[in-house]
Each structure stands twice: as structure tokens, then as C-alpha cells.
């Protein structure tokens, strides 16, 4: 078993250790590694959700997600992952006045995301985030099964429980292997997030109706922990972190694989319960000029919009702004056009 795991790790090391397509900044600022094109591209991706035509909007969204993955994973060298972005934002703020180019680089992406979320809604989650896109696409494999479970109110299912146990077993075996072959430090905290993810999946499979809403509060705790670690200068690795660092990082790979496996059982499980950025983006999104608005007169309470939402943010056409990823699937799925996107510059701050 150990040999198999070692061979797998060697393969993964080769597969993930060197996946950057761009070796040099395509539009680097003189004397720095700051890549301007990346920042501009991410800004464009953040604005696209507001300007693409309603027709074939979901295709545009998938295209946007694909570009997001290419830019984040294959071009950006500095970690802008779910944890790294909080950390780098803090670093960027501390660099203002000292190294303004570095400050610009680290602040620009999180600031763009927060500002565009305030203007155009929390579209980063639904349109750009590589971790979100990864979960959405992987979730397609078990989408039909999960939709049936959702329609039935997530009853206890032996198949789901067996799958959750399988996820837990993979986590434990992998951890046993890694604990013998690799040195772990405080910074490799993504293993703890993976552990909690596994526990969440077990708990949800056991009783989704009971635990779904309470567990979503963990996102705030996750944000606080990552922000605290950032203040202490601890480099906490996150899922998909290895994509930014151009290194084989077993802790990050483990958490990435755990997110992938867990999302097969519970759709968008990372976004729902543990993503720290989700707290910040939801806060910014609540102040958004753009919002999805329900025309109660046109709504027939058919529940189609509920069914298409991966994060259970819609209940009979009513959008929960704290949970909405602004993917606009509900808007596009509504046969009665009861849901629409409206801009309201006079909307009071929440």
C-alpha cells in the first residue's frame, strides 16, 4: 500500500510540480515580477458578467470560469487562492507607501473582487473562482443523483453515507502516508480544513436538513482563522494553492482532492461551508447595485429555480443574498421570467 501511495505521490509530484504555462511576466513592470496583464485580465473577467448578453449566458459563464482557471492556475505565480488572497491583501495593504508596485499587485485582485461584487453582485464566486469552477464541473458527475436527493429533501441515504465514509478513509490513509514521509508545519493547515471538510460531509450525509444552515456559519470562522494566521504571518496553504505556487505541495494537493471528492457527495461543499472569501464577498454582495429580483406576480412557485441552484440559495424564487453566487442559473432557468437582474443605484446599504 505504501509503495502504491509513494508511486502515486511521485506521479502527482511530476504532474503538479511544474504546470505554469507562462514563465515570465507577459507585461511585467520594470524591476519587479508584477504581471500587469493578469490584473487587467482578472478585472475584465469580473466585469464580463455584467456585460454579456442574456442569451447563452451560461456558456459565457463557463468560458469565463475556464479563463479564470487558466489565469489563476497557469499564469499567476503568487498565491491568489482562497486563503492566499486574504493573506496577500493584508500584505498589500502593509506595503502601501513602502513598495507601491507590490502593494498594487497584492491589493488589486482582492480589491477588484470586492468592488465588482459591490457593483455587479457576488459574481466572482459563480463566474471566476477556480475552486468554485472545479467543484461545479466535478459535481456534474453526480449532478443527477444529487438533484434527486435535493428534491427529496436530502434524506439519509446508504449510498451517500458509504461515499462519505470512502472520502474519510481516503483522507485517513493519505494522512497516514504523508505523516510518515513528509514534514508538516503549522503552515500546512489546509490538512485541518480537509479534516473538517470530511467531518462536515459525514454530518451532512447523516442529517442534511438539521446541519446545512448552522454549518454555513463556519465560513466566518474560517475567515477569522485565515485572517488571524495572516496577521501572524503564517502561510496557511489552501486547496488549489499548489496551482499558484508551482510546487508540489502535498497538504494543498490533499485538500484539493478532498474538496473534489466531497463535492461529489455534497454539491459546492467548500463554497457552502468553509470558503473564507465567501464571507467577504457575501458582505460586499449585500451592498451590490445589481440584484436578482423576483416578480411575485409572475412566479408560480414551481421550484425550478430551487432545483438548479448548487448552493441552495433559492427558496421558491426568493434569493438568499448571503448564499447567492450570482451564477444566474435561476434567472436563466425560470420559464416565466419571474426572476430578473436589476440595477438599483439607490439601493440602501444593508
Amino acid at each position, binding site marked *: 500500500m505504501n509503495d502504491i501511495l509513494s508511486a502515486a505521490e511521485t506521479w502527482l509530484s511530476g504532474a503538479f510540480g511544474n504546470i505554469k504555462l507562462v514563465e515570465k511576466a507577459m507585461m511585467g513592470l520594470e524591476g519587479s515580477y508584477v504581471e500587469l496583464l493578469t490584473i487587467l485580465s482578472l478585472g475584465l473577467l469580473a466585469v464580463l458578467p455584467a456585460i454579456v448578453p442574456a442569451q447563452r449566458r451560461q456558456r459565457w459563464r463557463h468560458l469565463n470560469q475556464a479563463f479564470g482557471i487558466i489565469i489563476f492556475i497557469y499564469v499567476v505565480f503568487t498565491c491568489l487562492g482562497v486563503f492566499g488572497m486574504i493573506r496577500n491583501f493584508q500584505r498589500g495593504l502593509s506595503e502601501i507607501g513602502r513598495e507601491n508596485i507590490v502593494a498594487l499587485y497584492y491589493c488589486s485582485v482582492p480589491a477588484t473582487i470586492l468592488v465588482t461584487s459591490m457593483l455587479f453582485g457576488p459574481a466572482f464566486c459563480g463566474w471566476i473562482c477556480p475552486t468554485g469552477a472545479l467543484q461545479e464541473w466535478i459535481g456534474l458527475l453526480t449532478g443527477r443523483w444529487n438533484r434527486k436527493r435535493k428534491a427529496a429533501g436530502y434524506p439519509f441515504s446508504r449510498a451517500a453515507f458509504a461515499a462519505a465514509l470512502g472520502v474519510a478513509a481516503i483522507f485517513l490513509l493519505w494522512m497516514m502516508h504523508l505523516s510518515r514521509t513528509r514534514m508538516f508545519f503549522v*503552515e500546512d493547515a489546509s490538512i485541518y480544513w480537509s479534516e473538517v471538510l470530511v467531518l462536515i460531509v459525514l454530518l451532512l450525509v447523516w442529517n442534511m436538513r438539521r446541519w446545512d444552515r*448552522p454549518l454555513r456559519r463556519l465560513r466566518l470562522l474560517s475567515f477569522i482563522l485565515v485572517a488571524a494566521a495572516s496577521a501572524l504571518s503564517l*502561510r496557511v496553504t489552501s486547496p488549489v494553492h499548489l496551482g499558484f505556487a508551482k510546487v508540489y505541495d502535498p497538504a494543498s494537493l490533499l485538500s484539493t482532492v478532498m474538496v473534489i471528492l466531497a463535492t461529489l457527495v455534497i454539491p459546492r461543499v467548500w463554497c457552502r461551508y468553509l470558503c473564507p472569501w465567501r464571507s467577504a464577498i457575501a458582505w460586499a454582495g449585500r451592498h451590490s447595485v445589481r440584484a436578482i429580483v423576483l416578480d411575485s406576480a409572475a412566479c408560480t412557485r414551481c421550484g425550478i429555480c430551487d432545483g438548479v441552484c448548487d448552493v441552495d440559495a433559492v427558496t421558491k424564487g426568493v434569493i438568499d443574498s448571503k448564499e447567492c453566487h450570482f451564477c444566474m442559473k435561476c434567472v436563466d432557468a425560470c420559464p416565466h421570467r419571474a426572476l430578473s437582474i436589476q440595477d438599483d443605484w439607490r439601493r440602501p446599504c444593508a
Partner: protein
Amino acid sequence: MRLTLFTTGVLLTAVLRTQADWSASRGSAQGTAALRWENPGALEEWHYAWKTQVRYKPGLAVWASPALALLDGRPVAFIGGFDQTLHALDLSTKRVLWRHMSNAGISAAPVTGEFQGRCIVFIASNDRTLYALDARTGTVLWTRELAPASPSLGDADFTSPLLFGGRLYVAGFVYDRALARSQQRAWLYVLDPADGRLLQRLEIGNGFVSEPVGYTAGGKTYIAIAARKGLLQSFAVDGDTPQRAWTFQMPHEVLGAPAVETGVPEPVLVLGSKYGNLIALDAATGRERWKRMAGNWFDNSACIGQLDGTNVVFAGSHDYAVYALRAADGSLLWRQPLGGEVHSAPAFFDLNGTPAVLVAALDNHLHTLDARTGRVLTSYFTGRPVWDKINKGENRWGSPVVIEAGPSTAALYGSFNATVYLLPLAAPCSLQARARSVRGLWISLGVVALAFGLTLPVLTRRT
């Protein structure tokens, strides 16, 4: 009686011998960065905390690599840094012998040598001046301004000196705002170590350059220097004037200095570069012998140690790993991932009979590795993390050195928290990391599970 006194005197002289032959930035051309202490006394753990307002950035001190010497049978370290000061530390008594302040940051290691019965420390400061100081007292023996002052001069960067073939070599680059980029010049200076007389000055590029490294190949003596822009040059220094022997253009930028094999008829010269190329060249001809690729930057020098009769190249990369490759053909012996980018040059030494490698990584630890297998023997926590305050390639990072002394073997390392650590490697040490304990890892996982369980009622209550 006279005979007894004479014999005692001879023996004492042998025992309390002064040994100052740290002639290159990492001790020698191989870059092993280890000094053997033949008749060791005890070396205790010491955290030399230096309080200064002159910092690289707030909260971040930068030390250059130290140099070691044995003065009267006691190991003494010389270490400079961004605080502009050279510190002489008596490691056996944990005492500061002297400090000498220059007028700018010191970004390169000093070297030591003996001349006219005196042990001398040579240090190049970024105040464009080379200093020769008495190692015992810190008295300035001579100084030489290498680049004349001018109102248009910008940042200066001077390398470690090299004592080789009775001459002192030092390279440097001073940015001149009055000149176009193509007109900027980096120079190699050749001096007389006795009095600092400038013998020659050679133009070697138009940007930052690495430390010069001296070596012998095919019966001739050479010095090699790498430019930041990747041009590696070797000069034959047998005659009066250094003659360019060969050049080699590295594929990317270079931050470290070359390391050269010794004791073989056709030695290889090894140099790493940005984006992870590690290239070995024939040291006599500059012909490429082999090339290997890591997952990320090599931003410091490699070192070459002899392992069971075979020369082995050790190098740390920003892909978190330390590599051990056979010097002859570049075949990989092992690769050991650590917890962060390996930013230091490795030190190769004997740890109580076990060949070992010491590296510093951005996981805030010094790691001792078994040189045969790559297994991590011990890790030491060396202060607050700095990963968020530095950029790759912005600086030449100080690297650890080792005093090889059997059970008293110790590492010396200037950490970014302004502390210079002397850490016993073969004896208990307070900074020994516990994070790698398997039991500790599983206990922490248990604690997280427990905390999760305890959080659940709170989450439910607040909903």
C-alpha cells in the same frame, strides 16, 4: 626544563593554532561552508540578538552569510548585514569580540586569511569600500575605495572577496544614474591583500554579479563569476593579468555563485538559475556536461561534497526541495521536499560520523539532512516567518555555516529576526522543531476534530 617548556610551547601552539582560511564566501570553491575544529571544546547554544534601528524593512533584518576562523584555538564567526556592521563573535565564550561599522549595508560574506602572522578579515561593504580588519581586535589595517564617489551614483552591490593565489579579488556593481543602461559597468577588482593596492580592474558586465570563485582545472588556475543576467565567465589567473578563458550564457537570471568540484582531473562547475535550471560545466573549458531541472528557482549557490568517494552536488530550490545529484553525470541521488522554499546555499559537513547537509528554508526552519538519503535528521525553528516580506530574487540571502567539531558540531545562522543563532547539531537544542513528530500531527488532528465537535452546539444555538 627548557626542553619541557619548548615542547609545551610547541604543543600549545599546535592546539591553539590560528586557522583563518575561509578564503571564499562559502569557505571554499566547493561551497561546503564548514570549518573543522580539531580539538573542540564545548559549543553551547547562543542566540545573539542585535538591536539596531537599521533594518532591511520594518521587522526584517538581513544578515549576510558568516565566515569562520579559529583564533587561538577558538571558533570565531564574522558576520555582517544590512545594519552596516560587521560583528566578530567568539562562539565558545558567547562573547562579542568587536564590531565595526561601515557606511552602507553588507550583503556579502567576509573572508579570512593569514598575512604576515596576522589573521585578517576582508569585507566588502556596499559603501564601495573594501576593508581589511585585524580579526582579533577589529583594527582597520587598510581600506580601499573601489568606486570613486559621484553625485550620480545609485545603489552599490559588492560581493564577497576571494583570496586566491596570493591575491584578493572582489567584484561589484554601482548603478550610475548619469549613464544609460547599456553604459552601466560591473568590475572585477584585483588587489594586493597585504596593503589593498589595486593591481587591476576588469570590466565583467553591466549589472549585478556574483561572488568570484577560484579553482584549479587542468593544471591552470581560474576564477569564475556569474552575472545576474546569466553570463558566466571564467578567467585564467596564472599570469599577471586575468585572461578571459571562456564564457557561458545561462538560460535565465543567476543569483548564486558557482560551486566547483575539487580533487578530480576534470572538475565540474555547477550553477543554478531562475526557473530551476542547474547546469554543470567543464570547469576548464566551459563546455556543458549536464543540465537538470527543478520545479522552481535556484536562487543561491550549490555546494559540492564528497560522499563515500563520490562528489555530490547539493542544491536547494524554491520548489521546496533539496536535490542531491552526482557531480559526474547529474544523476539524481535523492530529492527531499521541505516545508518551504529553500533559499539558502547548503552546507555540507560531518555530523558525528554521518555526512549531513544543512539548509535554511522559508518554512522558518533550518533543516539538517542525512547527505546519503536526504532524510531530515532534525529541524530548528529560527524565528518569525518572513515569507510575506520578501520577494524572490530581491536579495542574496545569508546561508548557514557549520563548525565541525564532533559532539560539539554547531550551526551558525543569521536569521531574519535580527538574531544570529548558534545551534548545537549533535546535542539537545531548545529550537529543535517538534512539528515533524508524527504523534504531534495526529494529536493536532484530534484536537481539531474535538474543536469542531464543540463548535457544533454553538453554531446551532446561533442559527
